[in-house]
């Protein structure tokens, strides 16, 4: 009996094949397979192809269970770019792959915890959407945090 293969489609319509028994590490995919057999292509409209390629690389790992912890740490360590890690964390959340999500989030926390607020804004590419008055109000309420 040949191993069943699933096809996943990224946001930008790229197709990725993965063996079903590996894909079902994702709880989201597992539930879909259970519900409708998932014979056709599974669309993942929130995951871009680069991120999906990473997720599939992770799902395809050949680690013994006891080495898994170390593997997932190393896996996210090698992808030290914050935007990449955030995309990965979001994809892992959507696909419900808990270990990957936790490791990616922990890595981001580790990277940004020594940043100044300005540096965090820069790293996450966000602009301050508050007025100076609002900012002052928050600084007053959470004095202890600043």
């Amino acid at each position, binding site marked *: 009996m040949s191993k069943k293969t699933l096809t996943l489609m990224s946001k930008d319509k790229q197709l990725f094949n993965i063996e079903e028994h590996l894909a079902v590490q994702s709880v989201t995919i597992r539930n879909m397979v259970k519900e409708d057999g998932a014979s056709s292509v599974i669309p993942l409209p929130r995951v871009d192809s680069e991120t999906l390629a990473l997720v599939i690389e992770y799902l395809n790992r050949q680690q013994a269970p006891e080495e898994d912890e170390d593997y997932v740490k190393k896996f996210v360590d090698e992808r030290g770019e914050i935007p990449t890690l*955030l995309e990965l*964390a979001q994809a892992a959340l959507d696909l419900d792959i808990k270990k990957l999500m936790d490791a990616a989030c922990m890595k981001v926390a580790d990277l940004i*915890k020594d940043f100044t607020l300005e540096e965090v804004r820069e790293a996450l590419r966000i602009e*301050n959407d508050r007025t100076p008055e609002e900012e002052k109000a928050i600084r007053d309420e959470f004095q202890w*945090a600043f």
Partner: protein
Amino acid sequence: MTRRDSWEGIKLKRGTALKDATCHALGCPHDGLHDLSPDDLVSRLSDDVLVSILSYMPIKYAAATSILLRRWRHVWCQTARLDFEDKERLNKPRSQLHAKRIKYINWVNRIIRAIDKWTEFAISKAFQRLELDLEGGFYSNVNYVFPDKIFASKCELSLKRSSNFNIPVKPKATVMEVKFLKALILKCVDVNDECLKKILTNCPVLEHLSICHSRNLTKAKVHGKALALKDLEIISCDRLIISFSCTKFNMQVSMLPKLLKLKQLIIAANDGNLFELASMVEACPNFQRFKVKSCQLTLLQLIRNLIKYGLINKEVKQPHQHLETALMRETEPLNWLYFIENSVALKKLVIKPSWQELGPTTKLAGENNATRYRAQLEPKTTPVGVELVIIDYT
């Protein structure tokens, strides 16, 4: 009202909860899917990812993120893990530590509003492990008193958040028993006898209890519903008379089996009062590790006590089979020989000599002491099958 509705005028378009994510994965159409620039990474992130990231940071930093974006205003409040670490504040010379510690407590207070709420908070959040380490307080005169009122029957725990906190108030949680707390570690927190009793009665799944530097624990009665207790550690409780309610153990035989699970007992006896220790140990027949850390008690005094109460005497009919480890400070190897000879059930002996207390007469370096210990003790331990471990600080 959904969480999304409560965000104030945010430009966020994507669903955030996991069910939404699944919905997208299934290919449901969703508005705003294509109008985001590739750089708009953060608005694509769901709160769950942010919460998870913040959970790995000390709360001080997590809270500071509330200023970054409107949407993040309250995200940090949802973190599943609270880390009150503040190295800047607590890495101070001892002379300043007291003042810093007060400030630190005030700081945490402002997070959870009142000191007792720390614990209530932990309980209401169904934590499995609660560790209150106020070690700095060892040098001050007042200890924080464990808020045993949280165990009051039908105690209504609610985290009332003041209105300027701007979070919807959650429904009150009614807690009768603390059904999920497995480990409780209290350092420099005052736990009195009554309070200990309440803890043991109300935490049926408590497995590990550690009480360190409690100033008002005098008669620790371990009984009642402490069904799951596996480790009990009581350290440096100056006024403790180790009674463990021995009369109760003897009188209420039905209680004895309930301590079958207690496998490790650690006692630091400052005043050498080991009275009734034997009865207590008898009540806990499954000890695997019995550790005595003694500061003032000499080994000979301890041995006299232990022999007196039948713990290590050869003549005892049922020697304590599970007495495995004695970890003590003792400077004279010859005293250990006496101990080894009298301990029939001893399987492993860990000696942690305290070099700084050796005194002026012993001018040997630490290394030599370890060698000396080994040379004198090994010929005695090896034949009787006692494993000898000497912890060397050098």
